[in-house]
C-alpha cells in the first residue's frame, strides 16, 4: 500500500549555507542504497524534503533495511499517495489507511495537515477537525489527544495528497562524503570494522588498509577482511582496501628487536605505512579500533608509542568503549559473526608471552635503530607491492 518514503534528517538541517551540499550527498547515498533493492526508485529533493518514490513493485522490508544503512537519515516515514478527488473521498482513504496500518486500534491520535498547495478548498485547521471527526465516527474506540497522541497522522496536500503516520528510526549521523576521507586500519577482529562504521557515521568516507603475512596468515584470513569490508561498505559506500604484505617487515623486526617489543614496533610500522598510503590517497586521518587497556598494545603507554610515529590525526572512536559495548555495535552492523571466525591475523602470530605494557619510548626508538640497515627498503617494497581490492 505504501508507494513512497519521506526521509527525515535532523543534523544536516542546521548546516546553514552548506546545507544543499549535505542534502545532495544524502540523496546520493540514498540512491546508492536503493540501487541494491529490487524495483525502480526515484529520489527527489523538494522544499527541504527528500522523497523516495517507488516506480515499480518493491519489497517494503528490503527498502527499509537498506535505507537504515544511510547515515544522515533520522527517520523513514512510509507514505501513501492518494489522488485529490474531493474531501469526502479523502476521508474514506484515511479511514482505510488507519484500518490497515492500525487494525483494531483504540489508540489516541492527532491530525496534522499541511497545505503545500494553498488553493485547496479547506484550511489546515479545517482539515484537522473534519478528518478527526470522520475518524472518530469510523473508529469509536479511538480518541483525540492533541498533546501526546499515539498516532500523529500527517496529511500533506500537494499535487497529490500524502498520508503518513509512522516513523522508522534511521541511523542518524551525517551523509558519507560530507566529511572528507580517512584510512581505516582494518584487521580481522571485532573492533576495527566498528571503528570504521562509527567514523563513517560522521559523514567520513572510508578507505582501508589490511596487513597480511603469508604464510603465517592464510588466504581465508584475507578473505575474511574483504568480507568485513563488504559488510561495512553497506554503510560507507565502496571501500578501497589496500592489502600490504607485511611478512618481511615482521620477520625482520623479529630478528632484530627484543621479542617483548615486537608488537609495539610492528604497530609503529603499520601506522607509518598506513599514513604513507593515507597521504597518497588524500585521506585526512587514520582510524583504528583501539580502546584503552584492552590489550598490551593498547595501554596509554603503548598508544603513545604507536601514536608518536605519525603526524596525521588518528581517530580512535572506541577509545572509551568496553568490549561488550563494541560487540553490541558489531552485532547491530552484522560484522560480529564474521569477526569471530578463527583465522590467525598478523598481530597474533609472533606475540610474546609477556609483551611490554609500558613501553619506554626512548628504548623503543633505540631498538628501532637495529632495523636501520634494511627497514626503509622493506617498507618501500611493501608499498610497491600493495594490492588494491575495491569492495562494494
Amino acid at each position, binding site marked *: 500500500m505504501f508507494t513512497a518514503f519521506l526521509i527525515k534528517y535532523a543534523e544536516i538541517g542546521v548546516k546553514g549555507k552548506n546545507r544543499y551540499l549535505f542534502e545532495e550527498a544524502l540523496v546520493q547515498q540514498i540512491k546508492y542504497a536503493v540501487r541494491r533493492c529490487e524495483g525502480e526508485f526515484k529520489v527527489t529533493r523538494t522544499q527541504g524534503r527528500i522523497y523516495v518514490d517507488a516506480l515499480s513493485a518493491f519489497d517494503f522490508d528490503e527498502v527499509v533495511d537498506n535505507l537504515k544503512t544511510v547515515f544522515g537519515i533520522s527517520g523513514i516515514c512510509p507514505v501513501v499517495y492518494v489522488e485529490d478527488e474531493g474531501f469526502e473521498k479523502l476521508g474514506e482513504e484515511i479511514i482505510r489507511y488507519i484500518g490497515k496500518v492500525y487494525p483494531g486500534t483504540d489508540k489516541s491520535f492527532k491530525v496534522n495537515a499541511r497545505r503545500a498547495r494553498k488553493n485547496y478548498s479547506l484550511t489546515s485547521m479545517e482539515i484537522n477537525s473534519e478528518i478527526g471527526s470522520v475518524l472518530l465516527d469510523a473508529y469509536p474506540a479511538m480518541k483525540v489527544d492533541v498533546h501526546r497522541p499515539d498516532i500523529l497522522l500527517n496529511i500533506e496536500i500537494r499535487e497529490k495528497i500524502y498520508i503518513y503516520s509512522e516513523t522508522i528510526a534511521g541511523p542518524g549521523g551525517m551523509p558519507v562524503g560530507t566529511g572528507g576521507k580517512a584510512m581505516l586500519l582494518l584487521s580481522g577482529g571485532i573492533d576495527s570494522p566498528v571503528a570504521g562504521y562509527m567514523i563513517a557515521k560522521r559523514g567520513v568516507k572510508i578507505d582501508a588498509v589490511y596487513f597480511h603475512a603469508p*604464510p603465517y596468515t592464510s*588466504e581465508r584470513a584475507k578473505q575474511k577482511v574483504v568480507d568485513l569490508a563488504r559488510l561495512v561498505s553497506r554503510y560507507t559506500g565502496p571501500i578501497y582496501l589496500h592489502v600490504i604484505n607485511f611478512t618481511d617487515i615482521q*620477520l625482520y623486526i*623479529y*630478528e632484530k628487536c627484543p621479542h617483548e617489543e615486537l608488537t609495539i614496533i610492528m604497530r609503529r610500522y603499520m601506522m607509518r605505512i598506513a599514513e604513507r598510503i593515507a597521504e597518497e590517497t588524500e585521506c585526512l586521518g587514520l582510524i583504528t579500533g583501539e580502546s584503552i587497556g584492552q590489550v598490551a598494545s593498547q595501554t596509554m603507554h603503548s598508544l603513545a608509542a604507536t601514536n608518536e610515529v605519525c603526524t596525521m590525526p588518528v581517530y580512535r572512536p572506541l577509545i572509551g568503549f568496553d568490549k561488550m559495548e563494541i560487540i553490541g555495535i558489531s552485532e547491530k552492523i552484522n560484522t560480529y559473526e564474521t569477526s569471530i571466525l*578463527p583465522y590467525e591475523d598478523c598481530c597474533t*602470530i*609472533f606475540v610474546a608471552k609477556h609483551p611490554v605494557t609500558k613501553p619506554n619510548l626512548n628504548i623503543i626508538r633505540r631498538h628501532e635503530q637495529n632495523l636501520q640497515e634494511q627497514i626503509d627498503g622493506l617498507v618501500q617494497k611493501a608499498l610497491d607491492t600493495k594490492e588494491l581490492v575495491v569492495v562494494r
Partner: protein
Amino acid sequence: MEVYLDNSATTKCFDDVAAFMTQLMCRDYGNPSSLHMKGVQAENYLRYAKETIAKILKVSEKEILFTSGGTEADNIALTGTAMANHRAGKHLITTRIEHPAVLQTMQHLEEQGFKVTYLPVDGNGRIRLEDLQKAMTKDTILVSVMHTNNEIGSLQPIAEAGALIKKMNPHTLFHVDAVQGFGKFRIYPKKMNIDLLSASSHKIHGPKGVGFLYAGEKVKIKPIIYGGGQQNNLRSGTENVPGIAGMAKAAEMLYADLERDVERLYYLKQKFIEGVGRMEYVKINGLTGRESAPHVVSVSVRGIRSEVLLHALEDKNIYVSAGSACAARKPQPSATLKAIGVEKDLLESTIRFSFSVFTTEEEIDYTLQALYDIVPMLRKYTRH
C-alpha cells in the same frame, strides 16, 4: 608444478567419470522411478552401479544402499541400526580415533539414551583386541571401527575384530567406516564378518555428494530420511543417478589395477618418508610400512605451526592438510593425534600428506626439496 597431496580430503575426479556423468545429466537424465523409457534407462545405470560395487565387495547387489556420502552412510549405519535394535540392548562400541561422522553420531545416540564405549588406541593408532573383548557386553548391539584412519593412516585389525565380535555375540553388528580404505584395499565384508560398511565417492576419484553403505541382508535398519520410498524405503529421495553411476565407474577403474597402483603408492610413500627422515626436528606419526595405509603420511615438525607450513608449501603450489581437512578449520587439536600420544608441542605442528594414483615420483622429489628449503627458514622464526 602443482602438487596436490591432500587426497585424503578429496581427490581429482577421473576425466572418464566426469564425461560419463555429463552424459547422464544432459542426455540420459531420467528419474529411475518414472515408468517410461527414460526412467528405465536411468534405472539401468543404477543397476550397473550396484552390480559394480557389489562385485568389488563380493556381496549381493541388494545389499548396496546409495547415500549422499560417507557421513550419511555412517549416520544410517549407526542411528538406523541403533533405533531398529534398541530392544536388544543399548550399548555401542567405537574407537577414539573415528571420523567426526561416527563420533558425533555416537554423541547424538548417547543423548538418546545409548551407552557408548570409546576404545583407546596404541601409539600407532591401533585398537587392542583385548580392549574390544573386555568392552563387549550382552547389551552390545553394534561395534563401529574405522578401516583406515584419515589422519595418520593406521589400519585396524578388521578381520580379527569381526571374528571376535561374532564369537562373543553373533547378534552384535559390526560397522566399518571404510571411507579411507575403499579404493586402496580389497575389503570383503562376508569374509570379515562386517555387517555394515561405509564408503565415499569423492575419495576415490568420483564426484562429491555421493557414497554408499553396504548393509548385510539381515541387518535391521530404521530409515533416517523419509519420503517417496526409494531404495526399498531405506533411503527416500530421487537417486543421484549421475553421481552414483560416476562413483561406480571410478571404483571400477580403481579396482581394475588395484595391486599395481597400491604397490606404487607404497613405493612413493617409502621414498617420501625416507626423504623427510633426513630432516631435523621431524617426526612421522604412526606406522610407516605395509601395516599402514599406502597413501597417508602424518608429519610433525617441531616449532612450526601446521598452518604456517601449509601456507608456505601452498606458496610453492603444494597442497596439503593441517592434521585432517575435516578438523583443520576447527581450532581444537586433533583427537586422533592426542589418542596416539603425540606430545602437546607437536599437536599443532602436524601436517598430513596424502597421495593418489595421480601422484608422481617427480612430485615427491619436488615436495621434499620444498620442505628442505622451507623448514629451516621457518624454524628460524619459531614462536617462543
